[in-house]
């Protein structure tokens, strides 16, 4: 760390997106004080959207200007990766804010804190995406998590929701402790918390048992890394750290879950990329028998297998989506490990970013549809509740169908391109294990098709057992339309999203030199139209 530089104007300019969202959070909190108790809080939602929107525009502006800066003496890296992650988080935030007002009003939990909690959490996530130091990473993680715990328990009168918040909090506190302990060990070994510094120190080799081929990775660094893996595995809901997911998703308000299931995952994966690629990319840490690549490889398989298989037997749509989000974490990990296989394959990290984009639209949309039905603390979340909405509420059902098809990876939706891209990254490594990983993933995603279809069957092909009330609300409908349209748009014209993903991956400031060199070499996968000259007319 460089203590000689104080906070400069440039630093403040660079964290403007976070600062805007944070100040809007404070402003919303203040507004709540002056709010008349029974009036609608729609305007608070719109103010939050405004704050997020301005932050998003600023991120996009910085991205277009090609900002690649270190801020706060190297504690934050405001590079294209951080900015694209910002955009994804802001997107999830805006969509969740759109889905919220009508939902909160109908369930009588319409309070202004909701939006400020959501905004503060978004700031934490954005910090995680930009963190270049384990301390900023930890700070971001806590700033993200604590508001989310509160949001999960936002149904104050529902014991389910309280349980959900409590469970999430206690397990989350454990994972934070793991993270801290891991950081402490690493600091003890390397004398720094700066991620690039850690890589350099580790490469210098003080901590690896030199010249001993059997014990390539010494115990202490391995232990430290395992602690980090546990902490981040918890946040992205990878098996075996997924236990909290179904209960929390089921108990928390649907509009919260729409934000929590997507933005937290985005932040978690951004953190994985930052920590493991920037910090631990050297050969022994990554590639030895106990290196993190192997661990994530198995986490990917386990997550896909457990998520997809257990989702099949669920009767509650929220739980089904929770298990499916575990499976999605598995697919994302496939892209992550494939891209980390070697420096040459790092290009494949784009697949993770694009997957997050597709996942955000489909998942926010799906939970928004669930939020669309039910009132006064009673949600319509079982398959039976949703039976027959195809006739009663064709618009919502059509949107849900698109989200389910996207989650299942069926063209022409964004989910198909995303899955395709992830498995492509795996096959591209050329190693047999990864091809097997791709085949396993493809086969398990087939099981996924079954439970997504089951929901469509309920909606269209079964008759309603009871009348479901739709909440309606212009904002909610806007959220659904945006999600559905974007899911189809990125399915048919994925180029824009892929370009964005490419930009993000190419601009990681602290990336190891080998990765940078591989990325700088001319793009491999560009196609040329090969037209043979027309034969004589």
């Amino acid at each position, binding site marked *: 760390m460089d203590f000689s530089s104080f906070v400069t104007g440039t630093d403040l300019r660079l964290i403007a997106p976070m600062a805007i969202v944070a100040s809007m959070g404070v402003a919303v909190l203040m507004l709540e004080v002056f709010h008349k108790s029974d009036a609608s809080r729609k305007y608070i939602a719109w103010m939050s959207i405004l704050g997020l929107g301005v932050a998003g525009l600023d991120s996009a502006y910085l991205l277009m200007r090609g900002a690649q800066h270190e801020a706060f003496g190297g504690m934050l890296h405001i590079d294209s990766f951080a900015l694209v992650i910002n955009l994804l988080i802001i997107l999830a935030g805006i969509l969740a804010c759109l889905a919220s007002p009508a939902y909160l009003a109908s369930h009588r939990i319409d309070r202004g804190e909701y939006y400020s909690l959501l905004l503060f959490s978004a700031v934490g996530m954005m910090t995680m995406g930009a963190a270049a130091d384990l301390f900023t990473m930890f700070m971001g993680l806590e700033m993200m998590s604590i508001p989310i715990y509160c949001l999960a328990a936002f149904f104050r009168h529902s014991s389910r929701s309280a349980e959900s918040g409590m469970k999430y909090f206690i397990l989350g506190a454990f994972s934070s402790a793991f993270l801290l302990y891991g950081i402490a060990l690493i600091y003890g070994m390397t004398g720094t918390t700066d991620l690039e510094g850690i890589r350099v120190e580790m490469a210098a080799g003080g901590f690896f048992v030199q010249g001993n081929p059997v014990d390539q990775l010494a115990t202490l660094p391995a232990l430290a890394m395992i602690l980090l893996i546990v902490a981040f595995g918890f946040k992205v809901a990878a098996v075996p750290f997924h236990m909290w997911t179904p209960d929390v998703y089921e108990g928390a308000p649907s509009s919260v879950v729409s934000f929590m299931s997507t933005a937290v995952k985005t932040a978690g994966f951004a953190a994985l990329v930052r920590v493991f690629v920037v910090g631990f990319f050297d050969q022994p840490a990554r590639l030895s028998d106990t290196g993190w690549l192997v661990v994530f490889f198995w986490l990917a398989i386990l997550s896909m297998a457990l998520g997809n298989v257990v989702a099949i037997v669920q009767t509650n749509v929220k739980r089904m989506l929770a298990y499916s989000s575990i499976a999605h974490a598995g697919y994302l990990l496939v892209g992550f490990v494939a891209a980390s296989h070697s420096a040459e394959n790092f290009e494949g990290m784009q697949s993770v970013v694009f997957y997050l984009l597709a996942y955000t639209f489909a998942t926010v949309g799906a939970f928004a549809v669930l939020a669309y039905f039910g009132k006064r603390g009673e949600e319509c979340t079982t398959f039976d509740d949703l039976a027959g909405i*195809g006739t009663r509420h064709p618009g919502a059902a059509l949107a849900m169908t698109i989200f389910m098809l996207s989650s299942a990876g069926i063209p022409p939706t964004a989910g198909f391109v995303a899955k395709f891209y992830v498995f492509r990254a795996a*096959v591209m490594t050329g190693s047999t294990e990864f091809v097997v990983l*791709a085949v396993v993933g493809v086969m398990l995603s087939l099981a996924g*098709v079954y439970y997504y*279809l089951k929901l469509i069957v309920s909606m269209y092909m079964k008759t309603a057992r009871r009348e479901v009330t739709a909440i309606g609300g212009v904002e909610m409908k806007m959220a659904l339309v945006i999600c559905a349209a974007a899911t189809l748009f990125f399915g048919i014209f994925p*180029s824009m999203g892929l370009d964005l993903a490419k930009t993000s991956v190419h601009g990681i400031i602290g990336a190891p030199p080998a990765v940078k060199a591989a990325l700088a070499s001319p793009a491999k996968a560009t*196609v040329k139209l*090969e037209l043979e000259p027309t034969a004589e007319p």
Partner: protein
Amino acid sequence: MDVSVSFPILTAVVFAPLLGAIVLMFFPKEEKGLIRNTALFVMLAGFAISLPLLTYDGSVQHSVVGSAFPTMAFVEQHQWIESMGVTYLIGVDGISLWLVLLTTFLGPVVVLSTYSAVDTRVKEFMICILLLQCGMLGALVSLDAFLFYVFWEIMLVPMYFLIGVWGGNQRFYATIKFFLYTMVGSLLMLVAILWLYFHTGGADGAHSFSLAAMMAVETTPEQQMWLFGAFALAFAIKVPMFPFHTWLPHAHVQAPTAGSVILAGVLLKMGTYGLIRYGMPLFPQAVVEFAPWMATLAVIGIVYGALVAMVQKDVKKLVAYSSVSHLGFCVLGLVALTTQGVEGSIFVMLAHGIATGGLFLAVGIIYERRHTRLISEFGGLTKVVPVFATIFMIIVFTSAGLPGLAGFVGEFLVIIGTGDSQVLFFSESAPLIGDAGPETGAFIFATIAATGVIFGAVYLLWMFQRVMFGPLKNPKNENLKDLNLREVVYMMPLVIMGFVMGLFPHLFLDKMHTSVDTFVDRMQPAIMAKAAAGTETAGRDEASRVPTNKLSDLGKVGRPTLSKAGAERLKKLQEADKIKPARRTNPGTRPKKVTLTPDQKKKLFKDLKFRGQPSGGTP
């Protein structure tokens, strides 16, 4: 360089239904009549737009997509996802041309048939049908593997809804089974496509999904085995070939009439079409090795499908199993790898589309009136509904393969083609049929297939007899209404096409010739290699053959086995450039249309006489 015709006619053909579906979304759902008429109009317009495709003449001058497809016409090419090497590349040749036209032709017929049959959620129904039409047409014209896969999957979704929403009592089971079965195959195919994709491209490493680029990939025989296995499984499930057929009867019986017609008429052909366009040309060596196995499954399908059809009590199930039998002919003709076999196979696809489509429509008509499809509920309907009886009879004959009608030509060509085949024998050490070499193997397969024709006549005519002839026992049938004008209007095109295809098959076959020749030529080196090896096998003395019949050698069956001597001979032949059969320089030497020798005619006549007997009611 004028690469495409000025008007993007194929794009218009493919996306006209999609446009129609989008327009329909904005219609109020109460306006059922308006919705139906609009859908009909869109389908008719789609058919009209596709008619200019008939100007295709099979010449090779349109070659713009690489030497892999010298006969491709109406080609359109645009970048789609540049970073992944995906192009929007479409075109038709003599093979896909007819399937495209079949699809657009069946479109209006299907829509018209649903005017009375579908009365709930008409809007959604029509949207599904139109989307399905778009998916099927897209898959037929795609020349880019990614594009093909996208359309291939898009087809599934509307069909899933058609069965699941408007289907019978067990529709959930049927529709999910249909979806999952197809997905299993498709995903394996996707992995194979990816593998090929990563092996495309030259020194600059630019990968491409274009089919032509994939054909240029060099693969070892073992890799071909795996890759072709993945493709073949996907297509075999779709066809469906014998052990993978179990989804079909469920799907057919549960689907609404229109769904069954499309399923049988076009969707099943996607499997055989996929084999011709993708599976087989990509992996010739694997194909010749798999050919006898696939042919075995095909003839099992032919005979098994026919036998099971014979004992069905439900007319619709009977027709569904008849599809298994007919599609067996398609596959058999394909793997025979002779020009006649392949052309016959394509012809069977078309004829099956017309005939089986017609059968399902006819079944639908009775079902609408009586709400049952059990054969035992009927009998003696001829007297009550004479017009229906006439039309139904012609369609039954078309399906059964009566000469002069569509069904006959294709099956006959397939049988001749199979008899000429040089690859339908098991390479080595197979204790099964056909160990004696190419001729014997081909003869055995042709013979079994021929018995399938007879069985086909049996179950169809027997069904017809039980439903239409005999005394009018059931009083519920006494007041059946005969066909109304609308029903006659949509049945007549099928009847007419049945006659046109049966009487003037050359109209159809002529446009296929060059494309089918290209296909067979591509397979030729592999065929010659296998034939050379086979002659070798047959020529070996008894002593060397005996041990290979041991049970322990069974596992070796089906491996790419070119005996050492055979390989040497092939190499010599190749060096001498004798093996390059390439394009037939003189098109006059090949049979332009089916010409029967007196012997064949006699044999055929015998066949027909026999065919009439068990039915009891010779036409």
